[in-house]
């Protein structure tokens, strides 16, 4: 090709653009200067602050609680729906679940807020979980459906022929076969819920503080480098999770013939 190095160079440049801000953020989590974005000296004080802060860990606890609940809710609703609903019907109803992906999140959030204020439901953890489960279902059901439709129907028929009830078939045949898809979509919902800001901003109310809400509040009121330290820790944790996940995935695909 005429310019064989043009394309790789552009790709490297774009990767640089993707990573430079995050890199700068990490570097500045060790900055002594709290007020401006100019480098002054090395310190780990912000990490001390971070780990001794009560507010941050409260927010982490809330975020994890909401994320776990919405994962469990959306997975159980989704898997039961996929198994028990007739297949042709699922295909027709699938479009219903894409709604939460096709509509901008801010419209979803406005809708949820209006619903809760219309029915005078107090905002809090429950309303937040409802919103995140709604987001999660939009991902869980298409993923589970595509996995379920790839399954060998004869396995299910064999189970029925051998005298298993519907419940037995569900728990000992379908769930184990769907396990990879369940794990993948569960993780996706977990991360989406942890990361979600807009729905939380509208539906959490004043008493409920999740991690993104806390970060936003601090950034808005003039950030301290503690946010950088928090970001660095979160980056480490999430990249570790992605690594573990992709490792598991590679192992699984290797095990297949």
């Amino acid at each position, binding site marked *: 090709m005429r310019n064989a190095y043009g394309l790789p160079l552009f790709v490297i440049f774009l990767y640089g653009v993707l990573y430079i801000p995050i890199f700068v953020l990490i570097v500045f989590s060790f900055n002594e200067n709290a007020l401006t*974005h100019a480098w002054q000296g090395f310190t780990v004080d912000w990490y001390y602050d971070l780990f001794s802060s009560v507010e941050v860990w409260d927010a982490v606890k809330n975020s994890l609680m909401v994320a776990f609940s919405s994962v469990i809710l959306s997975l159980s609703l989704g898997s039961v729906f996929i198994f028990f609903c007739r297949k042709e019907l699922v295909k027709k109803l699938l479009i219903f679940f894409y709604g*939460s992906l096709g509509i901008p999140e*801010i*419209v979803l959030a406005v809708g*949820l807020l*209006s619903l809760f204020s219309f029915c005078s439901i107090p905002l809090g953890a429950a309303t937040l979980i409802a919103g995140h489960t709604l987001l999660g279902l939009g991902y869980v059901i298409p993923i589970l459906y595509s996995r379920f439709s790839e399954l060998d129907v004869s396995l299910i028929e064999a189970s029925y022929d051998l005298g298993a009830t519907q419940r037995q078939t569900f728990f000992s045949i379908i769930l184990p076969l769907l396990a990879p898809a369940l794990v993948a979509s569960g993780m996706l919902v977990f991360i989406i819920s942890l990361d979600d800001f807009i729905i939380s901003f509208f539906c959490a109310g004043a008493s409920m503080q999740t991690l993104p809400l806390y970060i936003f509040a601090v*950034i808005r009121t003039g950030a301290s480098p503690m*946010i950088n330290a928090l970001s660095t820790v979160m980056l480490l944790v999430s990249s570790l999770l992605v690594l573990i996940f992709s490792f598991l995935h590679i192992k699984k695909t290797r095990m297949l013939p």
Partner: protein
Amino acid sequence: MNIKEKIKYYFVENSAFIFSTPAIMWQMLFLYMPLLIVVYMSLKINGSSCWYAVTLAHYKALLAYDYLKIITRSVCVAFGVAVLCLLCAYPVAYYLALRVPRRWKNFLLFLLTLPFWTNFLIQVYSWVFVLDHNGLINTLLLKIGLIKEPFHMVNTTWAIFLVMVHYYLPFMIMPLYSVLEKIQHDLLEASMDLGATHWQTFKNVTVPLSLSGIRTGLLLVFVPAFGEFVVPSIIGGGKHMFVGSLVTHYFLVARDEQLGAAFTIMSGCILIICALALNWVCTVVFQRRVREHS
């Protein structure tokens, strides 16, 4: 048959109905019903106790220059972000799918998905350190001596634009990559064997085959970028109003739910029209391409 058995029998008989409805009910209750409530609120007369007293006054109030300007700005920025994302993402997806050595591929894909999993707010906030008065770019340029005064970059529409392109880039790369990866190498080789140049092969074979990915990517970027609220408020300092920021203002600050609902519905309709138009353009281009070459 006693009651217990009857209940059990009922459950077994109707299990399909009982177990498949909760998911649909959830979707109805928390997605479609709220949308209806928003429509209703946008039509309700302020402070009227009569529930069916409806009016179009809120919509009329929104047909002012200021509101239309905000919507136009959001449409333009979202469209620009989508197009720029496409221009930047296509070479990357192309390189990853068709050119890169196999052993590097998974690693590069991993690097690409990593920012995707990091918190959105953190990604946006990290740009402040790059664009600020004494941030990375200004410090570097001052050190080199290219400029004497620091550039003013935060709080401008361009900064918002740049940060949005940065954030939405993976949303564009992923669908493009998955489409480009499925292209059979034989087709490209056949085109080259028949005497087409690299550029002709790219233009006439690769791009038409990846049009479905282009369409998905454009919509995946355009729709969320239209309702963007976080980037204008962190990078723009809340000075530049976008659709997302105005909706948030109405519902959470001004507490004017009727006007906010009307504005949400109006901009939602415009969004749907724009998305359909985008989809239509992609389809027309696709069909013309196919007709030209068949």
